[in-house]
């Protein structure tokens, strides 16, 4: 409040609200704005065409029976959505894809835990050549998903490195359960490097004086980790959880390249590809599945945000 408002008496007229004067934009500034706009125009156009328009088309096609060969499209209402849950052959495939996708999300927490452990070890500085290990663990994050999956496929073959080293006789790539275990294992290892780098950055940002103060109070390393480090790097955990879950729900390469279509590992996106692109000519059904997947991702993300205030540290 302004001091003069404090002494205003009842009935006294209020001054008209101050309307900020519109700043005059010079020709030079307009020119600069135009140039700036032109710089960001390509990504905007790209976004509109390849993302926004695709989303709109997908939504429209989810209510259409579209034949990509003849180009004929007819309105079928909610038939595609109903087919996803009732069709004699497609519904079981879709149901299986949903279950598989959710189960395979287990690799997200595992990779975070592994990344956290690695970051903790490297932060402690007790490992010689920590820079080397940082680079080594981060390599999968900058490698092609297809290349990684091909290599892992060889590793998990019945006569592959994994079985040979551990003396096992497990057929990882065929069984409904074993293929999931293999994918969760490989995805956890692939993603732990990225998690490690982010956790490490988060740990470096924790003020040292907090550790010093807690040491004076007699807190040990373990106590410090759980009472100081972990809460203060919770924003990193939250970020990893959100991006990991969204990425996991969009998983495709695992099903296509690593599992080569094994139904024990087919994901929702693989189902969409199968129905809409591979040759089934069910673009409408694939669009409906895509819309449901987008809704699922939004709901899961909203829930995560909703509960984040209970455990994510904010300054």
């Amino acid at each position: 409040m302004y001091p003069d408002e404090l002494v205003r008496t009842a009935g006294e007229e209020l001054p008209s609200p101050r309307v900020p004067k519109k700043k005059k934009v010079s020709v030079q500034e307009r020119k600069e704005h135009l140039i700036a706009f032109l710089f960001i125009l390509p990504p905007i156009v790209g976004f509109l065409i390849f993302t926004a328009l695709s989303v709109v088309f997908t939504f429209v096609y989810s209510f259409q029976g579209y034949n990509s060969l003849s180009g004929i499209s007819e309105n079928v209402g909610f038939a595609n959505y109903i087919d996803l849950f009732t069709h004699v052959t497609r519904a079981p495939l879709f149901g299986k894809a949903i279950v598989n996708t959710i189960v395979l999300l287990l690799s997200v927490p595992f990779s975070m835990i592994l990344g956290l452990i690695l970051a903790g070890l490297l932060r402690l500085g007790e490992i010689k050549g920590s820079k080397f290990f940082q680079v080594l663990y981060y390599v999968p994050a900058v490698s092609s998903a297809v290349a990684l999956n091909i290599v892992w496929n060889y590793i998990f073959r019945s006569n592959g490195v994994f079985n040979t080293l551990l003396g096992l006789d497990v057929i990882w790539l065929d069984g409904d359960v074993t293929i999931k275990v293999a994918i969760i294992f490989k995805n956890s290892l692939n993603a732990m490097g990225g998690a490690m780098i982010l956790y490490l950055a988060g740990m470096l940002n924790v003020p040292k004086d907090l550790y010093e103060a807690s040491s004076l109070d007699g807190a040990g390393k373990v106590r410090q980790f759980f009472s100081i480090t972990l809460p203060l790097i919770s924003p990193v955990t939250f970020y990893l959880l959100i991006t990991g879950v969204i990425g996991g729900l969009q998983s495709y390469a695992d099903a296509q390249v690593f599992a080569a279509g094994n139904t024990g590992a087919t994901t929702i996106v693989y189902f969409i590809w199968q129905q809409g692109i591979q040759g089934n000519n069910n673009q409408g059904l694939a669009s409906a599945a895509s819309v449901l997947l987008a809704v699922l991702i939004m709901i899961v993300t909203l829930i995560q945000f909703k509960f984040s205030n209970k455990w994510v540290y904010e300054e």
Partner: protein
Amino acid sequence: MKKRWLAVVLAGALAGASLAGCSGSDPQGPIISPEDPIEEEVTINFWGWGDLAEQQNYQTLVNQFMAEEGNENITVIYRGINSATYMTTLRASARNLPELFYMPDYDFLEWVSAGSLKDISAYVEEEELSQLWPQAVDEYYYNPDTATLGQSEGAGLYGLPKDLGPFTLVYNKSLLDARIEQKGLDADEIYAEYLTPTQAMTWEKFRTLLKMLVNDANNDGTPDDSVYGISHYEIETAVYSNNANFFNDDASEQRITDQNFIDALQFIADLTLVDHVMVPSALQSDMDGFTRFVNQQCIFSFMGPWDCAQFWGFDIPFTYNILPVPYNGENPDAMSTAWVGSMGYCVSARANSLQTAAAMRLAKYLCMNEDAQREFYELGQQVPNLVSMATDEYLNDTQGLLEGKDPADRSVWVDTINGTSDTDRIGGKVRPRYYTYSSGWYDDFLTYIDEQGLWTGERTAEQICKAYAPSFQSVLTEMKANLG
């Protein structure tokens, strides 16, 4: 303001969608015979599939075609695509197809019924077609009024056959001979009794032979030397060779509950579960049959004429030969019947008259020209389309182009295409997917029987087929409805 923007975006999207649906033009024009000289310059696109060697070979033939007298004004842009992604690429270009392209038989019905392929009847003379395998030509007849396939009467011709490929049994002769010697068996007797190119084995004989050859001392299903009897078994082949099928003649009613069909599936499962001679299904995902055969980890497998190109390219360290596929000797109506695949050269329905004439000239060159056909068989890509060439020059190698090249008994492929007399009982048949509107049902079926544990013995073929029959029937009904 926000609402206005949203309205603009939505209107744009809907307008775009409706425009996409309406795009295209009617390219019909006067028919120009492919035999007439092409005076105007014309460019056509031609898409095919195959490995790099095949693509290079096609590029060479296309170049030869363009250099021939009378073709000076035709420019062909050839694009070779990996077979695994070919149909996805073609489908993505469905509204803007190349003028000439491959079309596998199992996808033909969907494309022809959608109006994507041009009726080329007026561009081919009956006399020209009579030089080709009739069953290959017949595959590309379609009557849009009655939605019937394979019959020329009242129908249009929508493709010329690229090839006709029987998928027959192949054995590693070097490995087999070594095994016969190791086991102290009489080679002459084995060859006379089991390995005759003109007389197919019965299922029972085949099982007996495999059990004789596999080294599995403790009979636990894992060969002592990791060499299995056979890599896998073709389901269509077993079904056909027991006089069964997936559905009736017009693909409207399922037949997977017929006893012959069930017996065929159980025969395959028992090769692993009972006889312990076939690679277990779980291990088949590690390595496909072809690779396993090349790696000498099995004695028998299946191959088509197109596989020769790879075998010869690999320079494999063993000899091999082919045999007619086994059949159920206990079924008096059964005979050795391999599936015979084909691919068509099809012209886009949107090609204009000049492009169509040029595309047909190229299609005929690739399909019927003697030099081209000779080049194809010499490179190990196919049995010649020309009947006279296949049954003489190719079979007897009168040109000496196949000297020292396996398989020695190429007659098996010719017999399988041609069908032999009643006594020999060898023949071939197009795959069931050819008769249905789409081909995805076949993968769904394979997935189902795998998940239900047919290959692991959890459930029998009878239990699985009976459980799946209602679903399969509704899929067939749905596909029939799609044809209108």
